[in-house]
């Protein structure tokens, strides 16, 4: 049995051994959240030939505000079948943070496998209002700033500081949607030039339609396994050799929106620069954010993707943006490229909160 690479954090090597996601669609009225998750959970277990009885710990990420129903995260457990009683937890964040909790749980050493999943249906409510509720409730939320407007403020700051051009935004969008043509689960994929995209109208200037993520109904799941159990389940596990997450202040006006110091710090701790980055999956829902994140991760900033690092080969969040699952999907997409043997070292990033407030960075490597 090959040896797992030594992790930078934790006492115990942990790997992604399976990944599955639902088709990302604009509106899935045919299924409730449980019905959306059922085939995803079935696939992530089925990939490994295991059943729910082989799961040592379960952690999920979702928010009831999207659905408008109480305890939807508890109801979602019906998609797993938690009987006999299971060890389980939940985060009201993107499921990438649920993966972090599961990774921590696996460090305890008494369980060897963890199921992580996230789900979000954006079609049921008004995201412009729902996501305003994650802002400061005293002086920001009462103005109802929507996520597109906040991302546009960030884009303007990048433009005015000479850190990007509107063409850069279009190049990111064109490249992402072109990459998405190879992703059967993508929602928005096309082959259009940046020149063509620059002809679109502004939604909230300086953001044109192409710089915005789609509204998505989706779900995803990842199986983690620790130590030898990972090799038993998977020929080529994607070992998490570094992982960290950091947060910035809630006070938007106290942040420098042109940089992401929380991503930079997480990247430093996770050891991003310790080796070549063949693939990076960035959770950058708005096109300009990819440029901010590449800088923070110490990667070349090339909107056309000509560099040695393949940026968002899945198409990224511009191709499908299932809230609460999108960050986990970045980890899953990056890991899948190690599991299938295409590459050896990848970086995955996830974000949560308004305009890149909280960021998680993971380095995954093949043995």
């Amino acid at each position: 049995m090959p040896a797992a690479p030594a992790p930078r954090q934790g006492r115990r090597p942990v790997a992604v051994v399976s990944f599955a996601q639902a088709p990302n669609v604009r509106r899935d009225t045919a299924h409730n959240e449980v019905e959306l998750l059922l085939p995803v959970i079935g696939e992530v277990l089925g990939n490994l030939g295991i059943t729910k009885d082989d799961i040592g710990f379960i952690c999920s990420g979702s928010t009831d505000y999207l659905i408008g129903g109480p305890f939807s995260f508890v109801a979602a457990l019906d998609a797993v079948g938690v009987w006999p009683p299971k060890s389980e937890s939940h985060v009201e964040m993107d499921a990438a943070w649920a993966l972090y909790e599961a990774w921590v749980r696996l460090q305890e050493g008494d369980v060897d496998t963890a199921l992580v999943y996230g789900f979000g249906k954006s079609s049921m409510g008004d995201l412009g209002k729902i996501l305003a509720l994650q802002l400061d409730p005293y002086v920001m939320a009462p103005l109802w700033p929507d996520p597109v407007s906040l991302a546009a403020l960030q884009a303007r700051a990048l433009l005015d500081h000479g850190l990007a051009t509107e063409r850069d935004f279009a190049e990111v969008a064109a490249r992402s949607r072109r990459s998405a043509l190879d992703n059967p689960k993508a929602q928005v994929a096309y082959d259009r030039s940046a020149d063509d995209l620059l002809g679109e109208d502004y939604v909230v200037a300086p953001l044109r339609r192409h710089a915005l993520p789609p509204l998505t109904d989706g779900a995803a799941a990842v199986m983690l396994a620790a130590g030898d159990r990972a090799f038993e389940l998977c020929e080529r596990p994607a070992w998490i050799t570094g992982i960290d997450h950091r947060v910035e202040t809630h006070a938007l006006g106290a942040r420098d929106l042109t940089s992401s110091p929380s991503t930079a710090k997480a990247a430093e701790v996770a050891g991003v620069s310790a080796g070549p980055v063949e693939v990076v999956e960035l959770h950058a829902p708005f096109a300009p954010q990819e440029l901010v994140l590449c800088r923070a991760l110490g990667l070349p900033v090339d909107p056309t993707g000509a560099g040695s690092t393949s940026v968002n080969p899945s198409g990224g969040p511009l191709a499908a943006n299932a809230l609460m699952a999108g960050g986990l999907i970045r980890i899953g997409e990056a890991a899948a490229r190690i599991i299938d043997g295409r590459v050896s070292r990848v970086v995955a990033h996830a974000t949560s909160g308004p305009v890149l407030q909280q960021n998680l960075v993971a380095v995954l490597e093949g043995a």
Partner: protein
Amino acid sequence: MADRPGSDQVTTLDTPIRLDYHFSAGAAATPYLRGLAEGKFVGQRCPVCRKVYIPPRGSCPTDGVATEGAEVLADKGTVTTYCVVNVPFAGQSIEIPYICAQVLLDGADISFMSLIQEIPADQVRMGLRVEAVWVPPEERGPTLASVEYFRPNGEPDADYDSYKAYL
């Protein structure tokens, strides 16, 4: 303005929030809701443990597999447990005391909460056999509001062993 500085400082802030949703019942609950419009209880069965769930949510919470079929259940069942509501609350429209009970429909493997009427509150008991009282057909819709309440149906009380697994 008050004389002392700060004595009239703002201490509270009203932040009214209204969120509009377009709710989807999903695949499993839709036949259940349509059944209610027709005066029927329609559940689904787990293909693994064979249990029948109503309302169906699409998955067996024990086995984690999709539930199947359209199991039409009787509109009568057994009170497994109950409470007597004596506390008035905002928006209350039912005269207190009233009975809030868990009703296990015949053929179902899960009970659901319902109102029991046409019996004095102090005479309701575990094992009481009850039947659904439906609203007139023209008033029924895809909602549990199609059931007015449950009432005793005159059958002898159910044996404790017949419902003890559902408490």
